[in-house]
């Protein structure tokens, strides 16, 4: 099983000699420890799974944590209805391959029933909170794993690994529990739940190096491909059903890839020739712009966009 690794895990030779794990091995062990703690201490956890690279890595870690057993929790996808078709296809194949139960919370259904209104800018990422909380309540999930990383955003940089949420899913950044050593306190009262972020301490580069080392499959749009795009808000947007150019926006074909996959109407592509995972690792290592800055229109709205959304119950 370890033969597919491109990098061998740390070799432990002599216990009398000080041996250190590589940073990736340390991060992997930390994440697996957290995943197991949550499974042991909570009644009904679920894992947020979008088909995006961070959630794919999370799921991979979960398979390693419980091997040779099945991953002992369902996955939850909050579907914006603005998906890249290949990502949905990847999601379904992955769930099938691992024999998991998939729970879907649909933004479209909430819009159709009038419980949510489409935003003027057409972006649906911020609308995910309501279906997310609805799915958590309806399924009585008491812990939800997310692939959030602290290096993504300055509000995420402040969040605990186990983040307590109230009845409304709200995060209270001014009143977080101390989180000491590797002792995680998941106690919560009725109505509260916990968001767990096992890969909090990973950077984008760590994630890519891990994907390379573990030979993890991702949706193809993470790698360079030709696509019809148009420029908007300083990003390349894909032409698709929900993302149409305005008359003044010229459509051209470019070789691009995505650094995050989210709502198709607000996720931008970057010009890139990185066609393999190694190319991407090198590109990320050399990159001078953060992944959210490069590709997410919804984080550009205000200086504290992420904090505001998290306070309202967002991921």
């Amino acid at each position, binding site marked *: 099983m370890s033969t597919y690794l491109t990098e061998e895990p740390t070799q432990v030779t002599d216990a009398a000699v000080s041996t250190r794990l590589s940073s990736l091995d340390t991060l992997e062990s930390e994440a697996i420890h957290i995943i197991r703690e949550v499974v042991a201490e909570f009644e009904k956890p679920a894992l947020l799974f979008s088909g995006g690279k961070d959630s794919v890595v999370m799921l991979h870690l979960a398979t390693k944590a419980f091997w040779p*057993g099945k991953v002992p929790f369902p996955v939850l996808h909050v579907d914006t209805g603005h998906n890249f078709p290949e990502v949905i296809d990847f999601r379904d194949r992955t769930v099938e391959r691992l024999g998991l139960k998939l729970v879907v919370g649909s933004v479209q259904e909430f819009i159709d029933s009038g419980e949510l209104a489409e935003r003027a800018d057409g972006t649906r990422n911020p609308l995910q909170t309501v279906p997310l909380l609805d799915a958590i309540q309806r399924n009585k999930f008491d812990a939800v794993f997310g692939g959030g990383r602290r290096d993504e955003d300055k509000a995420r940089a402040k969040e605990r690994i186990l983040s307590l949420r109230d009845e409304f899913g709200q995060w209270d*950044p001014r009143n977080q529990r*101390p989180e000491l050593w590797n002792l995680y306190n998941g*106690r919560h009262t009725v109505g509260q739940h916990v968001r767990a972020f096992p890969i909090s301490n990973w950077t984008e580069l760590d994630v890519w190096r891990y994907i390379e080392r573990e030979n993890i499959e991702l949706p193809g749009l993470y790698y360079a491909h030709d696509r019809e795009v148009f420029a908007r808000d300083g990003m390349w947007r894909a032409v698709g059903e929900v993302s149409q150019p305005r008359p003044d926006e010229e459509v051209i074909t470019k070789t691009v890839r995505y650094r995050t996959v989210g709502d198709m109407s607000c996720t931008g592509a970057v*010009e890139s020739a990185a066609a393999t995972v190694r190319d991407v690792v090198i590109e990320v290592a050399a990159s*001078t712009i953060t992944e959210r800055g490069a590709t997410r229109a919804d984080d550009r709205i205000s200086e504290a966009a992420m904090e505001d959304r998290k306070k309202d119950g967002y991921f």
Partner: protein
Amino acid sequence: MSTEIDTARAAALLDEAPLAHASLFRFATAGSVDDGKSTLVGRLLHDSKAILADQLDAVARTSADRGFGGPGAAGVQAIDLALLTDGLRAEREQGITIDVAYRYFATDRRSFILADCPGHVQYTKNTVTGASTADAVVVLIDARKGVLEQTRRHLSVLQLLRVAHVIVAVNKIDLVDFSESVFREIEADVQQVGRELGLGSDGITDLLVVPVSALDGDNVVERSERTPWYTGPALLEVLETLPAADELESHLESFRFPVQLVIRPQGALAPDAVAGGLDVEAYRDYRAYAGQITEGSVKVGDKVSVLTPGQDPRTTTVTGIDFAGASLTEAVAPQSVAIRLADEFDVARGDTIAAAGTVREASADLYAALCWLSPKPLREGAKVLVKHGTRTVQALVRSVSGKLDLATFKLEGASSLELNDIGHAQLRLAAPLPLENYLHHRRTGAFLVIDPLDGNTLAAGLVNDHPGDHEDERYSI
């Protein structure tokens, strides 16, 4: 719009410095409010090129909006470096740090996890959070102010937590004209505090003092010409070369493994593993104990004891160490693995597997130092929860035996502990736990005190010695 990259440089970097094998080093900041912790962190990130272009732009814009820099200021002088970590709205509005910000950067030598902690007394619980996992803590002191009460509080917390390396950065040295005498005076005060606390002289911790200007960058990444009287290393050099805590400890300690859960798939084998050729018959009765090695290392064939509260230790042999389909012959802290044992004992979450013959008897009497982190005070007679390893038990607070006076570092009599107090207490546990002295066991000597009513964490607990039951008093099996 396109990602600006220098792929040749990156490829060279990845090849030359084997990043994949670089180890992790965790450090945190501490010190009194406004001493310049966040500015220092911003400076470290900036000068080690860990700030990406769009982040720098965003910070520069906000800084300009707030009148930072002023006319004529350019480049890094024009930005408020603290904004790189003070990410919450309330922090930016008030210009203070409220909660820990975690940032990540790497040099050719090491990958760092950096925790920028608040200085304000009210948020000491967050500083303890940041320091509890740190290999090193950088304590800042404003050169104009010297050692303050909050400096003393943080230093005593660090001594209590046995943070391996304490580096005191005498900051804002630019505001005292780079004066050697000011620095030497503060350095002497710090050494004095260190002696009183036992910091740097207990064989576990060390203490170093460096003059810096976080704002201008003197002695942060590179040695400064403006402090010719200082011949020691710059701060980053120190951080790059200090041994990490587990480098110092892991080989000295005996194997400890709190069981998180039992992996016993019975019928429910992972379909992907089966599709990949897993022998279904061979794994039908698979049973292994999952956990993270907290201390030491373990080999297949090792004799181990299974410690279950209320039972005598049971000795058996390790027959396998599994990790996601790979069979290891040996594993070391802090690896997460699954361990198989020769005997079919009943082992469950909360039990501990330890190297045979290295563990003291479990005890229901807990003598501990507490770092009280809640506005709800601790009173004698209170019922609390104690979380130790993977087990949580009820506990009764029998007595509070004193609290630390920050002016004298002496224990004074006390019958309760209030927010931010460091004190000693005796607790009676509902079930005996394999408690070990924190001095020698940073993981199995640590515990949380939890409020049974709302589930909040009340205190960081550190096991002191048991009366009449000392470290070297081991029983053999």
